[in-house]
């Protein structure tokens, strides 16, 4: 893992001291809210529906046990004993007091964490594949590049006032687990003739105008990365629309300008900037990469196979993924216990996960964009002990990738922008299908819920997407079908008119029952069935009365 340099330490401490003074000036009345708001946002502090919210970056989703324990400490001491892991690998504390936030930031700095650029019109926390460094299918670990981009983008003087926020994701694997196609810039590490380079996607994004990223460069040599990124962001910084917030993201710039023209502008800008990079970036990348060396894998003595419980077998089948080392496994800890809030962990649960990482798994944890926690390097012989400890902490739900492993944004339970609630819908779907005992029968199915058109819950790329809206003063939920966030990303199709809060669960049940009827056999997933049959049979299931009147 990356360890802070003296420069990093003093930079983060200085920023905390600066923000402490800004908070004091806000409280003593020297700063108005209009003056203070951009300053607090630069440091991750929002004002939500019921309280302030602090969004803390977990760079590329990687943290160690000491950092996880510190998050637990913060949750206990300054919040309400829990934290919410988000779809961009951040953690949000929902109840901090304004005056406590500088102390929280100091506590984060103690463990080399911060909340810088987790909001505002800047380059945000760079996300990466949560299986980075552990996946069996990986070309290269994406985290060194993500760290390089973090250092380059943090406080970058040219990019502190972009037209709009800017999100970058990196995958080192052909199986894209980082939804790179839905980012302003998506980077895919590829290998060509033995050399490592990047496929660069630009102009992806969800929100009110969902778009899949377009390939700007098919193979960018490694040494060109930073000047090329700088060229893209510089072109966007000039062309991006500042007249209309809803047209300010780079996806609109690319769409309105045309990919070829963007390519021409970026190429010209790149030519001007490339000579300014003297190679120091590559020296830094090499030093960073050395810090991400894989742990010393040690499979240890083979342990006798004990008769396993059904719960353990289900857990291993569902939550354990193949590791690059044959005697190791990747364990996904579901933060989606049936009926719980997706992505929430209590301070006690955080400490249990930290202890497991430290005792059994090379002291590493990951946060996935799907709002789960991962132990990326687990010797297989420790799986039973880990499962037992997780069970005791209410963390052993065997549902990863299944219908109750739902992404949900905080929605109108917390968010000031939301138009409807997301969390109760997720809770009800999970408990409903758990009661039916159908979850494993249904198989892989991704439901993603957003509480407004900004799509933090990624509903556009859910196999079933749910979007909560305000229709004439009532919560209403629109359903999209067939979305996909993997390598060949697809935006889901809107199925038809929305449903009231009390109708959504039965609507989802009709969709699932239609799938079980339609699938050729149990090996055909919901998404595969949808792609084979198209929208029509699912639409008929969703709107049975319309289907009847059509037939009449």
């Amino acid at each position, binding site marked *: 893992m990356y360890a802070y340099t003296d420069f990093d330490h003093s930079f983060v401490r200085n920023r905390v001291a600066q923000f402490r003074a800004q908070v004091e000036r*806000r*409280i*003593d*009345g020297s700063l*108005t*809210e209009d003056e203070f708001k951009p300053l607090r946002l630069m440091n991750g502090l929002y*004002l*939500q*529906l*019921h*309280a*302030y919210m602090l969004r803390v970056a977990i760079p590329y989703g990687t943290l160690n046990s000491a950092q996880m324990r510190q998050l637990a400490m913060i949750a206990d001491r300054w919040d*309400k004993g829990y934290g919410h892991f988000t779809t961009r690998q951040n953690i949000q504390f*929902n*109840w901090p*007091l*304004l*005056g406590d936030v500088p102390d929280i930031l100091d506590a984060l700095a103690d463990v080399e964490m911060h909340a810088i650029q987790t909001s505002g019109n800047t380059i945000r926390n760079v996300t990466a594949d949560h299986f980075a460094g552990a996946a069996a299918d990986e070309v290269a670990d994406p985290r060194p590049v993500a760290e390089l981009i973090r250092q380059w983008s943090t406080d970058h003087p040219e990019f502190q006032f972009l037209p709009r926020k800017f999100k970058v994701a990196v995958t080192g694997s052909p199986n894209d687990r980082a939804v790179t196609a839905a980012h302003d810039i998506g980077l895919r590490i590829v290998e060509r003739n033995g050399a490592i380079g990047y496929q660069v996607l630009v102009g992806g994004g969800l929100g009110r105008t969902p778009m899949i990223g377009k390939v700007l460069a098919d193979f960018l040599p490694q040494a060109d990365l930073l000047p090329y990124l700088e060229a893209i962001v510089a072109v966007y910084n000039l062309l991006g629309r500042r007249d209309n917030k809803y047209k300010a993201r780079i996806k609109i710039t690319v769409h309105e300008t045309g990919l070829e023209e963007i390519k021409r502008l970026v190429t010209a800008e790149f030519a001007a900037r490339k000579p300014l990079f003297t190679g120091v970036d590559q020296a830094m990348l090499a030093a960073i990469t050395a810090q991400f060396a894989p742990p010393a894998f040690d499979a240890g003595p083979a342990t006798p196979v004990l008769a396993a419980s059904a719960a353990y077998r289900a857990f291993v089948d569902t939550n354990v993924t193949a590791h690059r080392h044959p005697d190791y496994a990747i364990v996904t800890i579901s933060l989606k216990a049936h009926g719980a*809030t997706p992505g*929430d962990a209590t301070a006690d649960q955080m400490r249990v996960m930290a202890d497991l990482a430290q005792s059994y798994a090379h002291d590493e944890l990951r946060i996935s964009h799907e709002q789960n926690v991962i132990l990326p390097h687990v010797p297989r012989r420790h799986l039973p002990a880990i499962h037992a400890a997780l069970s005791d902490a209410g963390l052993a739900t065997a549902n990863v990738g299944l219908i109750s492993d739902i992404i949900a944004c905080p929605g*109108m*339970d*917390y968010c000031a922008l939301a138009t409807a*609630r997301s*969390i*109760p819908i997720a*809770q009800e779907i999970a408990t409903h299908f758990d009661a039916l005992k159908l979850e494993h029968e249904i198989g892989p199915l991704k439901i993603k819920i957003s509480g407004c058109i900004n799509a933090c819950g990624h509903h556009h790329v859910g196999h079933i997407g749910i979007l909560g809206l*305000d229709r004439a*003063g*009532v*919560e209403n939920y629109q359903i999209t079908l067939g979305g996909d966030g993997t390598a060949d990303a697809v935006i889901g199709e809107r199925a038809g008119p929305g449903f009231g809060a009390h109708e959504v669960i039965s609507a989802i049940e009709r969709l699932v029952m239609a799938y079980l009827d339609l699938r050729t056999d149990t090996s055909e997933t919901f998404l595969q069935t949808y792609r084979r049959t198209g929208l029509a049979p699912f639409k008929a299931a969703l709107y049975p009365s319309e289907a009847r009147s059509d037939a009449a």
Partner: protein
Amino acid sequence: MASVFTPKVVTANALFEGDVVYLAADGDWTRRLAEADLFTNEAAAALALLDAEARAHEVVGPYLADMTAGPQGPQPTHFREAFRTRGPSNYAHGKQETV
């Protein structure tokens, strides 16, 4: 013909805690909607909002929220304002902890 004015309260978030507050008849901020001053006159509501906006050292983002008069004081007409009187629905946090 003048359109009918929907009664309103002045609401905001407290500067220190971020908690939802309402302007009471005595000019103080209250945490309870029941104690909020309900304005039935458009001009009086607009003036009260202007006053509230000048109290930036106490609250953040004051605005006028639609209400109806109920037996226990003002009542929200929209679900967002109803949620603001309670807190989130997934945990008993926020106002519902104490009220």
